[in-house]
C-alpha cells in the first residue's frame, strides 16, 4: 500500500537539511577518527616487528618504509590474496602515504590486466610466457617477474568421519580427477589407506573454472607423475575437466564448494585450507614418503631447487624425504621502464619490502605461506634493481 508523502513547509525543509549536514559531518568525523585510531593501534602492534627490522642490517628496508605517496593497484592470483592483503595493510600502517589495492581476479585475468596497462603490477602463479610478454605495450620496455610468495597446494576433502592425512599418491589423484576412480571406497584408495573406513559414495571433484596459476601448479604436478594426465588434460592455467567435475571461481570458490559438497575433493592453496579448517591429504612425494602440506614440508621442497628463474620455475615433485610435492612460487609482474618516477619508485620499494624478511615475508607464516628462501629473496632484489624510471635512472635505492 502506498503512503502519501507528508507535506513539509519550506522552513522545516531547510532546517532538516542543516541537521542532515551536521549529522553527516559528525559521523564522517567519527569514522575518520575511528579509522585513524585503528591504524595507530595496528602501528603499535607492528611497531614490535619494525623494531626488529631495525636490528637487521638490510639498508634497503629502511628506505622502503619511506616511499613517496602513491596509490598502487595490482591484480591477479587468488593464491596470494590472503598474504598480499595482510602485508599491504601492514605496510600502509607503517607508511600512511601509500595504499595498495589488490584484486584477486585469477592469474589469467591478472596477466590480461597487466598487458592492458590498467594496473601497476600483475600477480600470477605461473610466469608470463614469451607469447604473453610479446603482448605488453612497448612503453613497458620489457617485463620483470619477481618471485613474491611460496605456497603449497593441498588436496582438501570433505569426508565425514575421515581425518586429515588420507594417503594419496600421484597416479591415484590423477585417476580421481579424470573420473576413472569414481568412489571413495575404490580398491586403489583403500590399498593406500589400510585401516581407514572409506564411505561407499561417489567422489565429487572440484576444479577451478577460471584461468588460474594454482591450476597450473596442480596440473604441472599431475603431468609429472601421471602419463595418463600428461597425455590427457595436460598442464595449463585452464584445462578440460570431465563433465562430473564441479567448477568454481577462485581459490575461495573451490574452498566454499568443497565445504558445501559432501564427499568432495578439491585443490586449494594451503592458506585457504588452514583458514577453513579443512581435512587434507598426505601426498606421496618423489622419495616415496607420505607428507602433509606444512610450512616445513613446502620449504623442504623449495630448497631442493635453488636455481629458480622466471623461465625455469617448476618446483613440483622434488626429491627429499621431507618434501611436499605440490608447491610453487607466485610472481609479481612489473614493467621494466616505469612511466612515472614517484609511483614507480614506490612500487619497487613496496615490492622489495614485500619480498624480504623483516618486511612482508614476516606476515607469511601466520597465514600458512612459507617465507621465501634467502637466495630467492636475493633474486627478487636483483630483479627489482633493474627497474628504471622514464629517464633510465634505477629506482630502487638504499
Amino acid at each position, binding site marked *: *500500500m502506498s503512503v502519501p508523502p507528508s507535506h513539509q513547509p519550506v522552513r522545516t525543509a531547510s532546517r532538516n537539511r542543516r541537521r542532515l549536514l551536521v549529522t553527516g559531518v559528525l559521523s564522517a568525523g567519527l569514522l575518520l577518527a575511528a579509522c585513524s585510531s585503528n591504524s595507530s593501534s595496528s602501528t603499535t602492534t607492528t611497531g614490535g616487528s619494525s623494531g626488529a627490522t631495525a636490528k637487521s642490517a638490510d639498508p634497503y628496508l629502511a628506505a622502503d618504509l619511506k616511499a613517496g605517496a602513491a596509490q598502487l593497484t595490482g591484480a591477479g592470483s587468488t593464491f596470494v590474496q590472503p598474504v598480499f592483503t595482510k602485508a599491504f595493510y601492514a605496510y600502509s600502517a607503517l607508511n600512511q602515504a601509500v595504499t595498495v589495492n589488490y584484486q584477486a*581476479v*585469477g592469474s*589469467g*585475468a591478472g*596477466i*590480461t590486466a597487466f598487458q592492458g596497462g590498467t594496473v601497476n603490477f600483475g600477480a600470477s602463479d605461473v610466469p608470463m610466457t614469451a607469447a604473453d610478454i610479446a*603482448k605488453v605495450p612497448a612503453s613497458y620496455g620489457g617485463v620483470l617477474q619477481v618471485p613474491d610468495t611460496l605456497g603449497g597446494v593441498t588436496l582438501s576433502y570433505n569426508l565425514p568421519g575421515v581425518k586429515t592425512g588420507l594417503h594419496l599418491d600421484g597416479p591415484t589423484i590423477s585417476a580421481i580427477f579424470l573420473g576413472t576412480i569414481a568412489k571413495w571406497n575404490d580398491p586403489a584408495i583403500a590399498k593406500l589407506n589400510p585401516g581407514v573406513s572409506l564411505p561407499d559414495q*561417489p567422489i*565429487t571433484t572440484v576444479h577451478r*573454472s*577460471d*584461468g588460474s596459476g594454482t591450476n597450473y601448479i596442480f596440473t604441472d604436478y599431475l603431468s609429472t607423475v601421471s602419463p595418463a594426465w600428461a597425455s590427457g588434460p595436460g598442464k*595449463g*592455467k*585452464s*584445462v*578440460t*575437466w570431465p*563433465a*562430473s*567435475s*564441479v*567448477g*568454481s*571461481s577462485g581459490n575461495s*570458490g573451490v574452498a*566454499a*564448494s568443497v*565445504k*558445501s*559438497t*559432501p564427499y*568432495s575433493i578439491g585443490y586449494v592453496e594451503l592458506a585457504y585450507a588452514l583458514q577453513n579448517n579443512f581435512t587434507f591429504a598426505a601426498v606421496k612425494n618423489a622419495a616415496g614418503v607420505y607428507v602433509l602440506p606444512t610450512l616445513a614440508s613446502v620449504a623442504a621442497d623449495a630448497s631442493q631447487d635453488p636455481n629458480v628463474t622466471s623461465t625455469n620455475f617448476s618446483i613440483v615433485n622434488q626429491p627429499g624425504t621431507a618434501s611436499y610435492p605440490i608447491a610453487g612460487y607466485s610472481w609479481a609482474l612489473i614493467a621494466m621502464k616505469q612511466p612515472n618516477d614517484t609511483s614507480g619508485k614506490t612500487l619497487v620499494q613496496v615490492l622489495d619490502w614485500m619480498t624480504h624478511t623483516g618486511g612482508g615475508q614476516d606476515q607469511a607464516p601466520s597465514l600458512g605461506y612459507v617465507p621465501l628462501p634467502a637466495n630467492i629473496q636475493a633474486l627478487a632484489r636483483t630483479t627489482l634493481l633493474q627497474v628504471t624510471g622514464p629517464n633510465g635512472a634505477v629506482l630502487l635505492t638504499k
Partner: protein
Amino acid sequence: MSRRRRFTVPDRAYRRALAAAAVLFAALLVAFVVAMAVQAVPAFSSLGFSFLWGTTWDPYHGAYGLLSFIVGTVETTAIALFLAVPIGIGTALALAYLVPDRMRAPLSTTVELLAAVPSVVYGLWGLVVVAPYFATHVEPFLTSAFGWTGLFAGPNQGVGLLLAGVILFIMVLPTLVAISRDVLAAVPREQVEGAMAVGATRWQVLWRVVVPGARTGLLGAFTLATGRALGETVAVALVIGNSPHLATSLKSNAATIPSLIVSAFGEATGTQRSVLFAAALVLLVVGIAVNFLGRFFVRSVKRSGAASVAVA
C-alpha cells in the same frame, strides 16, 4: 495572463525532456545490440556461424562451441519459470483476493522485501546452506521417486542444474508475485462483482474473469521474470557447477551464458573475447524473442475472442 506565460516555457521544456528520455531508452536498446554485434564480428568472420551450435568448448584448442551454454541458459530459466509461474500467480491471486484484509499488507510487504535481496546473497545462501541439504536429502528423494524418468541420473552433488533452477525460481518469485498481485487487483471491480452476481463460484471468477482480464499485465510480469532469470550471473555461477558439457540429467553440472562470461571474460583475448560477445548477443536476442513471443501469444488469444476486455 502573465501567470499563464510563466508556466508555458518550463512546461514545454519538461515535455521535451520526457520525450527525449523515452527516445533515449529506445536508442539505448539499439546501441546495446550494435555494440555487442561490433565486438562479436571478429568471431563470426574467423569461425563462421557454426560455433553457435558447436558442442565442444575448449578455447585452448580453438573449439568455441556455445550450444551447451545456450541450452544451459534455457534449461535453468525453464526450470525456474516452470516452478515460478503457477506458484507465483497462485500466490498473487491469494494476496489480491483470498487473504483476509488484515494480513494483506504485511504479507505483500514481505514478498516485496524478498525481491530486494541482492542476487549474490541468494547465490551464497544457495551454495552454503541449500546445496548440502540438496545433496543429502532432496536429490536422493527425487532420484528414488522420479529416477524412472531418466532425468535424475548421476551422483548427488548438490550443485548442478536443478539447484540453479531452484535458486532462480526463488529469485524471480518475488518480482513475479509483486507485479502480478498489483495487476490482478487492478481488474475492474464491476467485472468481478458482475461475475459473482450471475452466480459464478469463487474459482470461476478468478480463473475466467480475473486472470484473463489481467493477462497483459501478467505477461509483463512473466517477461520481467524471464529477463531476470536469463541474465542472472553470480548466483547461478556459484551453484551450477560450471561444466561446459551438455547436461544429461537434472543433477549434472552445467553452465549458462552469463556464468561462462563471468568466469572466462577476465583472461579472454582475441577470438575467445569476441566469442563471449557473440554469446552475449545470443542472450540478448533470446530475451527479445521471449518478449515478442509473449506479446504475439497475448494478441492471438485476444483475436480468437477470449472472454473479457483486456486491461490496458
